[in-house]
């Protein structure tokens, strides 16, 4: 599966990068609201190797959302170094970050974040269109990704016509379709019932077994324990 998805040049993982996928070195993040400063991350250092399955766990307010934003290149650290797949992203500008998000990170959100007016297929195609993949190839790869998550027969359905579990699987397909270095899931089962949750988590297990690097952010211990490694966060620092 991985090799099939990696067939296209623009999103193929760059060769010659055997090092870790995530290298976070003493990352700090400070938010300023007027004169008040909030230190959301106080020197976090994490390393996640290729093919690892890591859960980041912590109560709300522990800084795990901030960490997720930085890991997903949605935000820049105030200080410290962040290398994603060997590339230093801490100093990148907005356009470069958009490209990194597009090609190196696959997001799975708690709210699914599918566009309701588009079919499952076109939702999955979206990252590829930003990557500049030609329409025909885009379609083929989106179909493969949907097949991969077991929704090959639902490609023409809109999100409203799919169950929560199916919607989240579409979102996983969208995250996979660019063949990213990192699959970043933020509370992916937060809006699902237990059987759909089990379904989606089983999918993550499978992806991990196939060699994907998965980082899962959650506040539930049961879910975190499925990962090979748990990083606990409290008050902006790894405990």
């Amino acid at each position, binding site marked *: 599966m991985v090799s099939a998805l990696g067939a296209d040049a623009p999103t193929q993982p760059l060769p010659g990068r055997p090092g870790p996928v995530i290298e976070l070195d003493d990352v700090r993040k400070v938010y300023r609201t007027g004169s008040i400063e909030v230190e959301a991350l106080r020197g976090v250092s994490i390393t996640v190797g290729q093919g690892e399955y890591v859960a980041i766990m912590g109560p709300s307010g522990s800084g795990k959302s901030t960490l997720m934003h930085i890991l997903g290149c949605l*935000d820049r650290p105030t200080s410290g170094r962040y290398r994603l797949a060997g590339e230093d992203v801490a100093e990148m500008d*907005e356009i470069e970050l958009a490209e990194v998000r597009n090609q190196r990170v696959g*997001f799975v959100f708690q709210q699914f*974040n599918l566009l309701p007016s588009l079919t499952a297929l076109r939702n999955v195609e979206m990252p590829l269109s*930003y990557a500049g993949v030609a*329409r025909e190839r885009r379609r083929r790869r989106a179909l493969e990704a949907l097949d991969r998550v077991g929704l090959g027969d639902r490609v023409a359905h809109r999100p409203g016509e799919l169950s929560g579990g199916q919607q989240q699987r579409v979102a996983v397909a969208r995250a996979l379709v660019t063949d990213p270095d990192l699959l970043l899931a933020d509370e992916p089962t937060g809006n699902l019932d237990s059987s759909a949750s089990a379904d989606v988590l089983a999918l993550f297990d499978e992806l991990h077994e196939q060699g994907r690097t998965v980082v899962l952010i959650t506040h539930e211990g049961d879910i975190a324990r499925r990962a090979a490694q748990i990083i606990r966060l409290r008050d902006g620092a790894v405990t």
Partner: protein
Amino acid sequence: MTWSDILRTGWDAIRAHKLRSMLTSLGILIGIAAVVLTVGLGEGAQQKVAKQLAALGGNLLIVSPGSSTSGGVRGGFGSANTLTRADAEALTSKTAAPDIGGVAPILQSSDQSLVNGSANWTTTVVGTTSSWLSVRARTLSSGRFISDADESNAGGVVVLASDTATELFGPLDPVGQSVTINSVPYQVIGVLTSAGSDSSTNLDDQAIVPISTASQRIVGGTSRSSVQTIYVKAVSDGRLSAAYQETNSILQYRHSITASSTSDFTITTQQSVISTTSSVDNTLTNLLIGIAALSLLVGGIGVMNIMLVSVKERTREIGLRKALGGTPALIRRQFLSEASMLGLTGGLLGVVVGVGGAVVLRHLISNPIAISVPWLLIAIAVAITIGIGFGVYPAARAARLSPIDALRSE
């Protein structure tokens, strides 16, 4: 992301809110419809003028006698008699007047009664020469026109205009038949092709006789060589002013006039005749231009308003698009394409309504309305431009959103 992807994304967003998009386009629709009607009225008036010019015979100068009373001295035989057939003859000189292509003196009398058996018809009898046909740019539907021989022997022949022929002979061919004018029989030798009407007269209701016949048998009067009007045709459109100069100097010389202020004749052009008789309804045009400008402005503000709402409403979508790799430039283009499509929708519907309105209005007002395809395309381009112009600010706001804040928004 290719342009077709961006346009497709914009179109998807328009379709997702059909009613709202339609209402937003309404302002632009009205504006564009008004533009189409305004342009249509203007073009229609121009075409009408051009048609009248063509009907009257192009490149035409009209020489009328004795309008000048300045000084009171140069009256001659009275203001109506200052032009003669000899004047007309002099204008045909190829050496003195190389830019004059044809000359037709006219001696006419209205309210002449023409009779064919039991049918009678009152019309204008025009006496002229054989060159009248080419000078007035007319053609014959049957028979022949007055010849130089008819002219020299003051023959009793007549050429009927199409309406006159129908009134007297119905569907029958009048050529070879005879009609009486003032109880004198004339042989019908030809019928003119229909030419419509100019601003004041029906060109299809008249009877043409040789000018010698007219002066001897119909118009009468003391001075048998005088004419009422001389039509002068320039060799081409571009030579009209040269022909004007030549006509003026020849006639001044012949009438021994040294200063133009004492001229005993007037030369007018077709253009000056037309411009005084057919004026476009300016009030209507101004009103429509006002409506067009206002509704395009209001329509543009409407587009901006809806786009701002749309950006606010779809903050989460924008965040998602950014997370998936959308750069600020691509997000901006997406919203600009959406705004331009709102403009395009309004423009297309406006063109439909405008053309429909033109078809209806044609029956309600006397002014003709022309629909010109290049102008319709320009109108649509204007609509798209307005959409883009008023979409710039909302699109810039969308592009500026930070992905985290956008994703967090509910």
